[in-house]
């Protein structure tokens, strides 16, 4: 009798709690954007500068280095998720939150970031700069 009663109470509680727990977590959103985005136009950036652009719903960074090469990386720091920026004085990508430093290829070179930034492929089509998620990534 006690087992029956206990099981009944437990089942009732579970039937109340399960929907609440599921309700707390938002549904997964599917990214419908393509793998390639327009990051800007040639001439938008001066050499040794960078800018943030939208890569789907996330920020990414486009840098024109002093030697005239474009680099595109995810702008989300791999440490605790702040948005990084280009530091012309260091010629590197820097996260202001915890002083993390990355090379222009995205490699974490100093500070607390544990992993490199995801790097993207840069495609120049006429006057436009497109950024594409690398195929092997």
């Amino acid at each position, binding site marked *: 009798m006690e087992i029956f009663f206990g099981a009944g109470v437990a089942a009732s509680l579970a039937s109340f709690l399960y929907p609440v727990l599921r309700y707390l977590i938002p549904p997964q959103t599917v990214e419908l954007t393509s793998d390639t985005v327009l990051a800007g136009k040639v001439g938008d950036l001066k050499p040794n500068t960078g800018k*943030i652009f939208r890569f789907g719903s996330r920020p990414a960074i486009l840098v024109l280095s002093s030697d005239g090469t474009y680099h595109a990386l995810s702008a989300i720091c791999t440490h605790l998720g702040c948005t990084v920026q280009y530091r012309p004085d260091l010629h590197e990508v820097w996260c202001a939150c915890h002083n993390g430093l990355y090379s222009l290829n995205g490699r974490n070179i100093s500070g607390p970031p544990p992993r490199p930034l995801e790097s993207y492929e840069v495609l120049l089509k006429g006057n436009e700069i497109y950024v594409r998620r690398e195929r092997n990534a």
Partner: protein
Amino acid sequence: MSAWTSTQQWLEEHFRTDEVIALLRHKMIPLHRYSPFYFLGGMTLFLFGIQVVTGILLLLYYRPTPNDAFESVQYIMTQVRFGWLVRSIHSWSANLMILTAFAHMFSVFFMRAYRKPRELTWLSGMALLILVLCFGFSGYLLPWNTLSFFATKVGTDLPGQMPVVGKWILNFLRGGEDVTGATLTRFFGFHVALLPGLATIFVGLHLLLIQRFGMSVPPSIEAEWKANPSAAREMPFYPNFLLRELMAWYIALGILGALAAFKPWELGVKADPFAPAPAGIRPEWYFMFMFQTLKLIPAKVGPMNGEILGAAGFGLGALVWTLLPFFDRDKNGRGARWIAGVGVFVVAYIVCLTVYGYMAR
């Protein structure tokens, strides 16, 4: 019969207020050189009351959406009469409340007031301290400015690093994978509904336990009083201590008003999720020691990621600190000196890392 006397009589007849007053008269406050620390708990409660009143006033104009939040706080501060004062008092009293809550916790620690039979009083107090920090963290995002946006990113990413449950917690806190309008709505819900509800329960429990077990006397004073019983002194809570507490609250209100008027709380710049974190970004002062520690831990410490190690260290430290009454069973011996030493180290660590955080570039 005057209106006051008849009101008193009516209350007495209906609610037996004489019994409540008798209970308060029965409560005694020990008098010794550390007695001023007994004011800190009441002061925290007073500042919590200020938070509730000013928070309700802010709710009349605040709009919790990413498009409106910043503008609505700006509207409160620039258009609504005395809006700047209400918002500033809310922000200042929040910070002072965190300060007094920490001071109260450390005074209880160093006076060893958490010892048997007050273990539950300590535990309910620690729960309140955590709630106060959650209030601070959730309220910080509500103006939707750059600093609060990145502080929320970092603060929610940290529990997200935990193995197994990290992703679940991150999604629960943010309302998705990123800090967005969904996060703002959630934090607003936590700040004005969930946390006040929990705080009310825990404040009630904490006060009930204090009433039940009375005020603790530090072991050193206890020993002095035992050696010389005539030195033992105490004061009735009602009305003597309560009137002194009310005076302290009145002074605190004056300080709060002056701070709000002469140093109004800034609003900052509206958050842009697609802008880099600004140089010199820092959390609020009460999270600074953790922020600075995370900055100093290298990416990898042995096989572990630095930020996981930092988060685990702080979590474990907080757990041990909370369970302290169950470790401290030593009356006055080596164990007690060890615990006092650890307490001094923790205070020194927090102070040094906070100062370092403000000085470091």
